């Protein structure tokens, strides 16, 4: 049963009509870079307006001066000097960094075993467990911050329990409106930021590597130290970076829960645009914040390839 027509058919089939489409596709195939350019233009355009130009404006504004009538160009380093001269600002910067480091460190300690539990545990409820981790992740951090108010306040759950259990007779103020509440809340709301990257890198870990280590004589502890930990490093670094940046850049949490002793860098920054209206100085503070973050990235990139951590193909 031969198929008719095989001998009579011309090799390159003629297409009917649609010549414009053909020409366009032929053009795009000939000049591949046109297609790439076309596809990237929208994103690049957007990011120019979202990222590039705004940061340039920050730099420009940092050389202006704030007067009664608005901002005028200054072309001097006055704003920067203002930062250094008043010890309050560098101290605040250091304190914020310290708080962020504390949050990150504790978050890492708390999250790693949890991520391990998720990744190496039974697969049965894994999806449910992951969803349960993601739900807080997908809820606004504003709400999650706010949710600590009823717990930590003088009329809050903690005090209520303490008084009911008669451990104290008067409400204790130490839980709220200080650095403790800020750190605690920041750990809470950014926990998923640490858990997820570590989970992903642990999940990717091939169990057979652990078996091989065991086969070669390593007990569970040494297997963890020599195999699991190093291979989960990209996730750990990714988590550290994400949590630190979130904690260091915090505004809502310290404002809501920090009282006067829990103020962080972000609050003073934001104040320059509402209360004090010193836009140029605020720009300096913003640039310092960005510089700290970029500094962290540079350090982190020595430990792992950050492009791979943040996703997309390497």
């Amino acid at each position, binding site marked *: 049963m031969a198929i008719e027509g095989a001998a009579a058919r011309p090799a390159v089939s003629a297409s009917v009509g649609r010549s414009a489409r053909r020409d366009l596709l032929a053009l795009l195939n000939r000049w591949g870079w046109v297609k790439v350019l076309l596809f990237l233009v929208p*994103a690049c355009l957007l990011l120019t307006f979202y*990222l590039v130009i705004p940061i340039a404006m920050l730099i420009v504004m940092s050389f202006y001066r704030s007067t009664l009538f608005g901002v005028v160009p200054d072309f001097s380093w006055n704003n920067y000097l203002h930062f250094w001269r008043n010890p309050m600002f560098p101290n605040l910067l250091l304190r914020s960094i310290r708080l962020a480091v504390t949050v990150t460190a504790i978050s890492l300690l708390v999250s790693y075993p949890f991520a391990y539990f998720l990744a190496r545990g039974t697969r049965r409820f894994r999806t449910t467990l992951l969803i349960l981790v993601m739900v807080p992740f997908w809820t*606004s951090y504003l*709400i999650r911050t706010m949710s600590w108010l009823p717990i930590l306040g003088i009329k809050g*759950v903690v005090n209520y329990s303490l008084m009911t259990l008669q451990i104290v007779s008067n409400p204790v103020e130490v839980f709220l409106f200080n650095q403790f509440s800020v750190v605690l809340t920041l750990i809470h709301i950014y926990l998923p930021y640490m858990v997820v990257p570590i989970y992903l890198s642990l999940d990717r870990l091939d169990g057979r590597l652990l078996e091989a280590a065991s086969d070669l004589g390593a007990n569970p502890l040494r297997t963890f130290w020599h195999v699991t930990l190093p291979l989960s490093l990209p996730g750990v670094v990714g988590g550290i970076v994400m949590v630190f940046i979130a904690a260091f850049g915090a505004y809502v949490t310290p404002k809501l829960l920090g009282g006067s002793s829990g103020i962080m860098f972000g609050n003073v920054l934001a104040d320059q645009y509402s209360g004090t209206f010193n*836009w140029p100085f605020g720009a300096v503070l913003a640039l310092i914040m960005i510089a700290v973050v970029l500094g962290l990235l540079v350090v982190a990139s020595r430990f792992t390839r950050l492009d791979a951590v943040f996703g997309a193909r390497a």
Partner: protein
Amino acid sequence: MTDGRARSFLRIYGAAVYVFLYTPIVMLIVLSFNDSNSITLPWGGFTWRWYRALAENQSVFVSLKNSLTLGLVTAVISTVIGGLAAFAFRSRFRGQVAVMRMLLLPFVIPGLTIGVALLLLFHALGVRPGLLTTTLVAHVGFTLPYVFVLISTRLHRFDESLEEAAMDLGADEITTFWQVTFPLIRPGIVGSALFAFTLSFDEFIRTLFTIGNDNTLPIQIWSTLGSMVSPELNAMATLIVAASFALVIAGELLRGRER
């Protein structure tokens, strides 16, 4: 460290972490039914009145509508732009590392500094802040890297020989995309859009600096926190948590469909 003991320890530990994660949220939800004027204890009895008050609160509805609109528009624009960029990265081209770094940079710049910088930009341009103008730029920029990463990852897993087969059988590039590529990655794209919507819906800090007189829901909550602190706030928060929960489930179902 025996395996059994280690497992039990990890399970207990895991449970403890979940308790830590959820206690504040659960408290929030419980206290939204509190028949008392404070957002915290003591417990005054069960009531629906805060939800009723919410339902009658006009300004909340307006804010909700704004958040939904903004979220929808953001999701669509962000997914299209981010999706196109992800497709661009299937080919190799000069400077691709630099472009990818720029695309991922918004991940690491603190939202507060972006908000401030955008304020400067729009002020300098003389653009008046508006929901679907200045705020939209902030939201699309914010969600773009997330969408880009999600769609890129999905594309990376895509079997290119399917596209070659389609072309081999007579489908040109455009037809191949619609008939083969798009149907197969569609759940991933919708999932990314859903995620972008959620990010936009919850976004606060950049919105604070780029929004004018309008309110989104988080902005309204923020201003309410300053003044009227009552369980109505808890009710609002509870509804938002419920919505997030629903969205996560929807996202997971989509991902499950892909397998």
